[in-house]
């Protein structure tokens, strides 16, 4: 009982004792340990957000399924009837466009919200002892729920139209995992930055539409000239879109180099974002 803690947090003594032995292992595990420790809180805050999204409307979850389905149908109709690409490729074109859009939407939704994340929860942060770093988790899990529904709709659609989902689709978790890490890191980074100036939020909103064209949503990187390939790969989303297309649509293993680069970038962004957020967290409280 005679454990004294600095008033970082009145509630979690253990976390702070852990913090005294700072090493590489601590650095690598602390973001996950932290999320695990607050899992109950993450669940409640997430539940509250999903409630606002789904239960406040008449059809609730139906919208979440109808939106991607409608989009898939429109894509298919456009690529078969208007673009007239011909043969097998047209349905592939529609499906691959949908995969691109799915990732873009996930990315855009998260990043558009990130700069305002802290001021959105200002009452929690200023009026109670609230670990604001969990907001990145809840905000990501919320967006993942929508993206997940989109994914399921997509897979069902592919199964129905094409009749097959290749075995390589089982590799999907290995591609999604680095994506989650990458997104979490980005949200931490932009939410800390966004607390200091509203311009970050406007900047993200201004830059985001560019991403839809830089990300290979409407085209594929493969088969493009080298310069296009290079510029696209600077975009952090592109590798995920390409790799997912390969394993889901073409039944091929993803390019190993692309895979490793994606993981590398994700890990750096994740730990960088977390450290950045934790460093500026206490200062951010005073300015939001």
């Amino acid at each position, binding site marked *: *009982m*005679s*454990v*004294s*803690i*600095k*008033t*970082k*947090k*009145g*509630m979690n003594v253990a976390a702070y004792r852990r913090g005294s032995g700072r090493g590489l292992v601590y650095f690598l595990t602390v973001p996950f340990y932290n999320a695990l420790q607050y899992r*109950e*809180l993450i*669940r*409640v*805050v997430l*539940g*509250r957000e999903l*409630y*606002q999204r789904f239960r*406040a409307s008449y059809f609730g979850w139906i919208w979440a399924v109808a939106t991607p389905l409608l989009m898939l149908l429109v894509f298919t109709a456009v690529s078969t009837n208007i673009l007239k690409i011909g043969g097998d490729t047209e349905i592939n074109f529609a499906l691959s466009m949908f995969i691109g859009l799915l990732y873009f939407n996930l990315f855009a939704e998260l990043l558009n919200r990130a700069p305002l994340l802290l001021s959105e929860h200002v*009452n*929690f*942060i*200023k*009026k*109670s*002892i*609230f670990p604001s770093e969990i907001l990145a988790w809840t905000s990501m899990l919320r967006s993942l729920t929508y993206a997940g529904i989109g994914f399921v709709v997509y897979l069902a659609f592919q199964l129905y139209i094409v009749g097959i989902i290749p075995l390589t689709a089982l590799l999907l978790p290995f591609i999604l995992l680095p994506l989650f890490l990458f997104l979490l890191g980005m949200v931490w980074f932009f939410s800390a*930055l966004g607390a*200091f*100036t*509203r*311009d970050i939020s406007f900047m993200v909103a201004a830059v985001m539409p560019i991403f839809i064209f830089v990300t290979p949503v409407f085209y594929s990187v493969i088969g493009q000239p080298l310069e296009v390939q290079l510029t696209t790969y600077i975009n952090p989303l592109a590798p995920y879109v390409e790799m997912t297309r390969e394993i889901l649509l073409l039944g091929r293993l993803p390019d190993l180099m692309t895979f490793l680069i994606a993981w590398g970038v994700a890990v750096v962004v994740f730990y960088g974002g977390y450290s950045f957020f934790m460093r*500026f967290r*206490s*200062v951010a*409280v*005073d*300015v939001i």
Partner: protein
Amino acid sequence: MSSDWMIRCTNVGKAYQIYAVYDHRLMQMLFGRFKKFYQDFWVLRDISFEVKRGECVGVMGRNGAGKTTLLQLICGITEPSHGEILTRGRIAPVLALGSAFDLDLTGRENVLVGGAVLGLKRARILKLMNSIQEFSGIGEFFDRPVKFYSSGMAARLAFSICAHVDADILIIDEALAVGDEAFQEKCLKFIDDFRAKGTVFFVSHSVKQIRALCSRVIWIENGGVREIGDPKQITEKYQKALMQEKDDSARFHIGN
């Protein structure tokens, strides 16, 4: 110094950063190590005190004296600019009651959120739910969205949640001002009982409440401790000082 303290503040000071231009915040964040873009605004300076187990300490002071900042520092919501604050055990803050409620959720659902924020496990909250409902005394409104509550009802609900947290230190910020007499009575009784197992830190403008509850009073003025001591003596002096000083807007000023 004794060793059975629950809260210990040593030379605590807090300066907020006042920016002339809004975007200097970003500049400070990026280039802060080269140049200072803000003006310091000292809310608290050099505060030192100790609170022991079983004590109920009242905090008095005029608006803007730094009472809420002191509570936020003790809770660890914001960090002191200098000095050290040590606390023992779990803190339950009853700061600005009900402001964190989600208006679209029902009282019951808000209890789940609020309880989780205060660190209660879901199973524990569900177990306490009936007791919380009863303590709040808002009847059928418990299952209505909070947007239909009166401010008194919201305060009742908020206090009821905090009353059910197994805390060692209870921090109360002018929370009881909104409730009606009957509810205030209930809360005061709760706080009194709470002292048997924990420590209470209590901000109020009500001399009556402070005298009834507190074993010690800290009088804060212009960010510093003006006096610490017996509730009766201090409240008398405080009231006398108020009468003399009147309400003068020159009290609020930024800078040194």
